[in-house]
């Protein structure tokens, strides 16, 4: 009995070992494609990866994240990447996801396409820059009674490349309001020039998971994980006069864009309409006044909709839409950048259209 048992164990082990050995040898010979080079966006980045693996995985390992919902099983069709050279033929597993138009552009499904030789690919610049950052809270300060400015110092990676106006996703760890990690998007308020830091302006939303976390739990020195940058809310290249409209924490991307313009000596005509209820909702006035002085063509127009008696307010009053209507002339030449709640944005779009601003020249970042 014992002998039979021993024999069967030995034999099955021998078979397994033999086959495993065979696989190891095959892996090292037939399956070994050596290291191959991936050239991204016309050589703006070169990666050296182990050949023979799917493109999606190879890029992921090198920190280039291609969005994929199914995790590389070829069932979501999201991870498309343009392979301009070294692509070879399409695989049957890619074809259901690739249209004729995409075939002409050599778009491949990166989770199915395997890197076997040196290839050149093209990916959107944004994706190329999206990374996960380990950061540390450098400072938190109150901008108003319900808006906090959080300044994060980037630790790993220690630098971020972004366009002014883009946003990042803030990772909220598990705490009393959530059983799992959640992500919330916040616009970056700091200048792209300050690439070792990211500043966020976060308004307390009653019962908001992330805003409560930031306002009630986050302390200086805490670790925070973010990923980004994302978004196409950035200044378009033209000479048209600019209308910025934002209230409350919607100032963040606008401030970033303004700082960037100042740094680059961009002298486009620009007005920033900043709407608030009363004086206690206004913030960073000194900073914006300073920018106004440094930039001859920039005007800052704060407006209060319900100024209190003690505010002694001498500036513009009324709803932001009315203030815009009063101050903007020749809308047809303007570009407008809006950031705020959906209600405010919709109302502003209506007024801007009335003033003659072309729909294709209105850009916005809606909070949702």
């Amino acid at each position, binding site marked *: 009995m014992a002998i*039979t048992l021993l*024999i*069967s164990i030995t*034999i*099955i082990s021998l*078979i*397994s070992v033999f*086959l495993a050995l*065979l*696989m190891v040898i*095959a*892996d090292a010979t*037939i*399956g070994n494609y050596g290291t191959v080079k991936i050239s991204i966006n016309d050589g703006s980045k070169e990666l050296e990866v182990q050949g023979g693996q799917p493109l999606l995985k190879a890029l992921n390992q090198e920190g280039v994240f291609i969005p994929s919902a199914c995790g590389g099983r070829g069932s979501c069709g999201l991870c498309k990447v343009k392979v301009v050279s070294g692509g*070879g*033929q399409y*695989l*049957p*597993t890619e074809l259901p996801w690739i249209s004729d138009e995409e075939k002409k552009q050599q778009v491949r499904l990166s989770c199915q396409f*395997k890197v076997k030789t040196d290839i050149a690919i093209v990916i959107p610049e944004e994706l190329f820059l999206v990374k996960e950052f380990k950061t540390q809270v450098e400072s938190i300060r109150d901008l108003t009674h319900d808006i906090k400015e959080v300044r994060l110092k980037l630790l790993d990676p220690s630098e971020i490349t972004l366009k002014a106006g883009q946003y990042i996703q803030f990772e909220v760890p598990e705490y009393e309001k959530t059983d799992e990690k959640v992500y919330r998007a916040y616009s970056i308020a700091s200048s792209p020039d300050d690439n070792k830091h990211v500043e966020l302006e976060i308004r307390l939303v009653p019962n908001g998971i992330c805003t409560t976390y930031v306002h009630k739990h986050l302390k200086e020195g805490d670790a925070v994980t973010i990923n980004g940058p994302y978004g196409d809310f950035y200044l378009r290249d033209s000479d048209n006069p600019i209308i910025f409209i934002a209230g409350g924490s919607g100032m963040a991307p606008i401030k970033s864009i303004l700082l960037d313009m100042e740094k680059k000596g961009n002298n486009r005509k620009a007005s920033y309409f900043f709407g608030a209820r009363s004086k206690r909702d206004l913030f960073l006035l000194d900073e914006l006044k300073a920018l106004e002085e440094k930039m001859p063509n920039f005007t800052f127009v704060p407006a209060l909709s319900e100024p209190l008696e003690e505010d002694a307010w001498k500036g513009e009053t009324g709803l932001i839409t009315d203030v815009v209507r009063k101050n903007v002339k020749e809308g047809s030449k303007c570009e407008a950048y809006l950031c705020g709640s959906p209600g405010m944005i919709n109302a502003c779009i209506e007024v801007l259209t009335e003033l003659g601003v072309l729909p294709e020249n209105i850009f916005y970042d809606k909070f949702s």
Partner: protein
Amino acid sequence: MSESIMPIAVLFASIFTSNILLTNYLGMCSFLSVSKELKTSTGLGIAVIFVMATTTPLNWLVYQYLLIPFGLEYLRFIVFIIVIAAFVQLTEMTIERYSEGLYQSLGIFLPLITVNCAILGVSLFMVIREYTFLTSFLFGLGSGIGWFIAIIAMAGIRQKLKNAKVPAGLEGPGITLVIAGFMAMAFMGFTGMITLS
């Protein structure tokens, strides 16, 4: 049946009268999911023919010269699975490396059928029915061809079906199973011609 015509009879029986898919209902999962397109069905069918025709004799050798001498027949389930998996993996790697064209048409399907029960089933039937080496090979080949015929027939029907009004509750796998049932009945019509023990 005389010994000499036995192998040929097995070949034809496994294609038609004892079709592994339609009489034993083995290998249903890939049959149901892949039979939407004629082109992919063809690729998968050819891959099945190849794997069945090669792994069955391979397993016969392992069984006769390794398992029987040591009295380990009861381990055949595990051993057959390992042998099939390793063989398929090796073949896929080789094809992928050396022939892009073949990989396009055949290689890409190989990993999908490693765990296809029809393939293990063929190896196990071969043992139960005590086939010789040659008969095992023909049985594997025939079963593969039978599976191939069944899936392309189904794919053809399903492509026509796109123009038919299928009741909402029967769409997809439902109607496919009903059709598979009809096909099985049609194939059973051949049963009287040759029977496999």
